[in-house]
């Protein structure tokens, strides 16, 4: 069968909403595009453990400590599913991780911002996980089967994460003067970076048209960002806090909130490695991997010995 015919069958499946599975024929660019996106997603889960992990030993109550620990552990689990999904596309976990450590692969820029106060843990849950969920709910319908299925599992846990984040802020918002200030300050710092999570404007997005045609993405960056603003602008009222955007305004005519322009210079700077914590995050991941080298070697050597022994027996 010619490549043209294979491509036609492939696009036919996509158009008919039939999932593409690992053993199916797929265009090389589709495979590469997915490897890039799924591995980036996996790395985001793993690097994302660091800013929240920063508060595990300092959580203000035993209950909060346990919830936070469980939450960060969930992120590790998400990383695992996603590395497995990447493996179905023919790259090993080790290769994928090496690409992160060399700087070749990216992860979500949001995790290059520091968690300075306890309220940041609430803001991450509410805003960052909130933004991630919108993207991930869309991805439960993505065309590649293993990725879509991983997303179904992940979405269930993420909605719990968002609720716990909101609940942290809700308690702060009804607390002492310092707690209220802490709450507002965290919202102020995390709001714009959260909007940046949806990526550049559709007009600037390099992979946009192809991703939509292949149904890897099902909604555009700007569409998702608008959904997010509409959702958060309402929820923030419950907290009796404000979003740091003087242009934020409900528009009856469109049925959406208008909002100000993102600082794209900051966005590209952080993407290029100049965010407040880019170096530290990557360094922490590299260090964990390097320090673990002898452990992985020992585990490998031991399982090899066992195999030999059981064959000899």
């Amino acid at each position, binding site marked *: 069968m010619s490549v043209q015919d294979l491509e036609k069958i492939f696009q036919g499946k996509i158009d008919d909403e039939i999932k593409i599975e690992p053993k199916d024929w797929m265009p090389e660019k589709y495979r590469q595009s997915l490897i890039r996106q799924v591995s980036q997603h996996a790395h985001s889960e793993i690097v994302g453990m660091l800013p929240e*992990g920063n508060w*595990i030993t300092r959580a*203000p109550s*035993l209950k909060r400590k346990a919830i936070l620990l469980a939450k960060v*552990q969930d992120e*590790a689990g998400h990383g695992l599913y996603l590395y497995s999904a990447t493996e179905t596309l023919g790259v090993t976990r080790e290769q994928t991780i090496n690409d992160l450590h060399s700087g070749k692969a990216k992860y979500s820029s949001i995790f290059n911002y520091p968690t300075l106060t306890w309220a940041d843990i609430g803001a991450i849950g509410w805003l960052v996980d909130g933004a991630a969920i919108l993207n991930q709910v869309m991805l439960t319908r993505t065309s590649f089967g293993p990725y879509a299925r991983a997303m179904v599992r992940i979405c269930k846990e993420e909605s719990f994460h968002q609720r716990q984040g909101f609940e942290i802020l809700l308690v702060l918002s009804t607390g002492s003067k310092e707690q209220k200030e802490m709450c507002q300050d965290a919202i102020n710092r995390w709001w714009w970076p959260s909007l940046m999570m949806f990526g550049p404007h559709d007009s600037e997005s390099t992979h946009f048209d192809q991703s939509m045609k292949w149904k890897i993405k099902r909604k555009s960056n700007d569409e998702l960002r608008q959904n997010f603003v509409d959702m958060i602008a309402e929820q923030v009222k419950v907290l009796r806090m404000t979003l740091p955007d003087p242009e934020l305004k409900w528009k009856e005519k469109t049925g959406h909130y208008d909002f100000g322009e993102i600082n794209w210079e900051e966005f590209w700077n952080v993407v290029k490695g100049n965010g407040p914590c880019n170096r530290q995050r990557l360094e922490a991941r590299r260090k964990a991997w390097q320090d673990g080298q002898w*452990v992985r070697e020992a*585990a490998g050597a*031991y399982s090899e010995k066992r195999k030999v022994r059981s064959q000899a027996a």
Partner: protein
Amino acid sequence: MRSQSTNHLINYILHLADDSLILGHRNSEWCGHGPVLEQDIAITNISLDLIGQGRNFYQYAAKLTNESTPDPSFAATEDTLAYLRDIRQFKNCLLVEQPNGDWAQTILRQFLFSAYQFYLYQQLQNSNDETLAAIAEKSLKEVTYHLRWSSEWVIRLGDGTSESHQRMLNAIDELWVYTGELLIAASYELRAMSTQQGVDLTILKPKWEEKVKDIFVEATLPWPGERFQQIGGKEGKHSEHLGYILAELQYMQRAYPGCEW
């Protein structure tokens, strides 16, 4: 006025709670930094179990405290007990507050402690204090897994590569000195034993030694035998490490007193 025997029981429970919390805290420092993702998840799981056990014990200690000193201006809770006592009031053993070191040291610390906690909870299930017996029964399921997981890792590292073997030897050198304290009863443990609320540590000792010996043999690690032992943690005489653990653990409650979180 609180009776002497209630005081001893509360101290005994706080000792059990502090052991679990402090080791849970140490293990939680690994979260996000483990040598491989699956093990990052495993050590975090163990950390969560230990913090959960600590919470059960603290809640019970708080209840007994409030019943015996009905001071409405200050009610004890799991959080006041964990976050508002200072270093000299903490009753955890020295072993659990030791730094994580490398993976070998963390694994060995977990194994030595889980082997102790396994037999401890096994006995504590027979406590004539129903709450303690119930917590022990529930926790034993978790500790059974901790013991299996850490035993497997001791064997894997001991019998892995020459580097991992050497690192296990270093870990033994570092930690063995803190094992004796696990099985030497503090005053409140003796009292709890005499009232059959607590556990007789002399029964535990041979079981613990047998378990550790078996695993060391399989791991091709030498039995360290009699060595000088550091004690004091259970009586509030800690290593300098605990002060820094508490500085982190208690930071928020100390910086913003009297808040809800």
